[in-house]
């Protein structure tokens, strides 16, 4: 197992370099440079200013030199400084936005699982029942609905008309003056709408997935055996079927690890949440190469690690895979 892990980890390195190389080239292929945007359409900015900025940013060098410089800083875990006018280190800019993004994404995944797993099970068990059909329609409506539109409707309803929830942001203005209980309540009330909105689109996928897994498992011989033994339907479903049906969900969870640091621009814009999505989007619009590359690298690392994690946990959860792995190793 350790050997397998080491091999997998080593393989990640060339893969990661490949990913950064392609990203780097693609980003520089996009027309426009950060210096264009900072100096253009401003009569006071002379052409020398632009040249000077290009030298300061190292944009006057050939692309392979730029890539080499960037990569050599990266291996020392230095993501460089942003090309935005604030010139802050990329890592700082990412780190100050990461906690809220992760918090929202974790909460949203928990909510999705908490709703869609039971929903999927019941739908499978009571296949083609009224409940099954209704939930199918509902979750797909949630999936199909533009989230920005739903968000605005709910902000208007709960925030303006009923006045029970805050509309945007993460904290109220007087947050500092609240006692700790009030602070927690304030935080929670700000999170309700964003978490709900970001979860609603994910319900359809997960619950349908759960449902089809369950249907698949229920048809297996060992379920028949369990029933033949005279076990109650409850034990058959929740003890024997559910465990097996949950296996593929692990894979999906592993794959959603990189999604934890990714945000949605539209969603963050509407709720005025300073998250990763908006940071990345603004970076792209400003052609802030170090920032874009920094976020892409982190995303790539997490994607690769997520895949690895999914494989490993799969092996841990499923004795069949574990055994075949041992035989090979």
């Amino acid at each position: 197992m350790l050997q397998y892990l080491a091999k997998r980890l080593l393989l990640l390195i060339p893969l990661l370099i490949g990913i950064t190389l392609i990203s780097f080239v693609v980003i520089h292929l996009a027309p426009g440079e950060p210096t264009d945007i900072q100096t253009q359409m401003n009569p006071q900015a002379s052409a020398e200013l632009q040249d000077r900025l290009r030298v300061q940013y190292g944009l006057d060098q050939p692309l392979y030199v730029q890539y080499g410089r960037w990569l050599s800083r990266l291996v020392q875990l230095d993501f460089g400084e942003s090309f935005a006018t604030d010139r802050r280190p990329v890592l700082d800019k990412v780190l100050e936005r990461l906690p809220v993004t992760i918090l929202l994404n974790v909460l949203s995944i928990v909510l999705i699982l908490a709703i869609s797993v039971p929903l999927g099970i019941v739908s499978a068990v009571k296949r083609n029942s009224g409940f099954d059909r209704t939930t199918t329609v509902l979750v797909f409506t949630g999936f199909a609905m533009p989230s920005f539109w739903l968000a605005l409707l709910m902000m208007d309803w709960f925030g303006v008309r009923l006045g029970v929830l805050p509309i945007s942001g993460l904290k109220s203005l007087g947050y500092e003056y609240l006692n700790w209980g009030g602070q927690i309540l304030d935080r929670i009330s700000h999170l309700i709408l964003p978490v709900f909105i970001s979860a609603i689109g994910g319900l359809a996928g997960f619950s349908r997935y759960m449902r089809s897994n369950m249907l698949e498992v229920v048809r297996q011989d060992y379920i028949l055996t369990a029933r033949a033994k005279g076990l109650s339907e409850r034990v058959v479903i929740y003890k024997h079927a559910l465990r097996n049906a949950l296996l593929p969900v692990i894979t999906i969870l592993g794959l959603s690890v990189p999604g934890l640091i990714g945000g949605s621009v539209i969603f963050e814009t509407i709720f005025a949440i300073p998250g990763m999505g908006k940071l990345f989007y603004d970076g792209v619009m400003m052609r802030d190469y170090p920032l874009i590359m920094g976020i892409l690298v982190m995303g790539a690392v997490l994607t690769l690690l997520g895949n690895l994690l999914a494989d490993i946990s799969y092996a841990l959860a499923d004795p069949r895979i574990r055994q075949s792995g041992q035989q090979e190793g």
Partner: protein
Amino acid sequence: MKRFCLLRYVLLFAVLLLAGCNNNEQASLPGVEESLTPEYGDTFIEASIGDASVLLPVLASDSASSSINSMLYNGLVRYNKDLVIEGELAESWEISPDNLSIVFKLRKNVKWHDGEPFTSADVKFNYELYVDPKTPTAYAESFRQVTRVEAPDPYTFIAYYDKPYAPALISWGMPIHPKHLLEGQDVTKSPLARNPVGTGPYTLVEWQAGEKIVLESNPDYFEGQPYIKRVVYRIIPDQATQFLELQTGSLDFMGLSPLQYDRQTDTPAFRRLYNKYRYLAFGYTYLGYNLRRPLFQDKRVRQALSFAINKQEIIDGVLLGYGVAATGPYKPDTWVYNPDVPRYDYNPDKARALLAEAGWEDSDGDGILDKDGQKFSFAIVTNQGNDLRSKTGEIIQRRFKEIGVDVKLRIIEWATFLKEFINPGNFDATILGWTGGPEPDSYNVWHSSKTGPQQLNFIGFKNAEVDLALEKGRRVFDLQQRKAFYDKFQEVLAEEQPYTFLYISEALPAVSKRFRGVEAAPAGIRYNFNQWFVPKSEQKYTR
């Protein structure tokens, strides 16, 4: 201090820039008439579309940073409510009879936020900072006109010019940075970018990236402590969200869109909470023709296209009537505006006649004009993200079709738009806007020497009369004389129609009724922010 930047966020800039007023709609009880004594306290909360980037004015080029910087720093001079230049850090000034030097007498009671006194050495340092080739600033140009500066005593500062330069005085309105904290340092790495020290009415107390920026009034401000204790900028990137926040009363100020102003705020609940104001903003939107293209080289063709556009229809449709038709680069309520230039009111027949005169006829009967086998067909490009411009383009497209001109509309992402279309001159026509200010010098946009790559006269307009008027206009100080040059400039532009000047939009701010002392003036409404106050009984945020 004249600064043009592209009008990308029409609403945002409209609120931020100093702007003149032609109308003011107040629902009830204008606060000024109550004659209350101003009281200290309360918090003013407004929203900003984007986070500030750097709180050093010399480096900042985004509107969020600029509007916060204007609360933290001062210049030597500023525009007053009637757009007349008055002293800020300068007590008085004297321009020499030959117009080649300005002697500023500085205020003596000014302190930096950290307690150090402000002196002429700071001003001298700022001049050096702005013109230093190592400083990546977008504001060096007007200081490059200065030949040398002197600081003979701590409260006297002299700037010398080798040629009279009319925008000289207002160019000293650029914010002054503290010498004692910046001297000998790399300004791009200065910690002041996030912990600014200025002389202004407010100081920074908190900056949560992407979330909010909090300012607090400066008790030692040289014009007296502002009444409003705290100013909070909440970063809310979405206009719809801002508007929802406004409706709950959690914002005290917002620049409304025409739709919001007209249709969505006409409720008793809204009127109870807010006063709405409207005034013409500085800046105009235009359709610019690439004069390097053979298609647009005939003046009659450009005039015809201007006649074919119904400006009022665009104002009614796109701005819901909250704007006026532009006849040139200046807005009607300024001293420099020339009302007697040829106007191009909607007249399709005249447009067709002019095109026929220029040789454009529909010889093959397909509804599109042609000449020498060439169809009259071109593309209008504009940038993505500005709804007003794309809608304007669609209306123009239809009107051009009616006179037999085929137009395609292309909307392109900003960076690509500049790099691939505007810079290399690779476009037929473009819908864009300029924002300006009270200073009329438009040398950089219209002079024939500014037609090079990446310069602002990207349509390639070259006209000897305009060149002369612009050169003379920036060299005389007397307003009467200046006006004569700019009148001529506007006449030639109106005749030549290198742009079809489309419209000037209005700024439509809403301000919470708690705030008294808000008075619309030619400079807009924010010029006297330090005198705004909330009566004790109505103060909402007491901590």
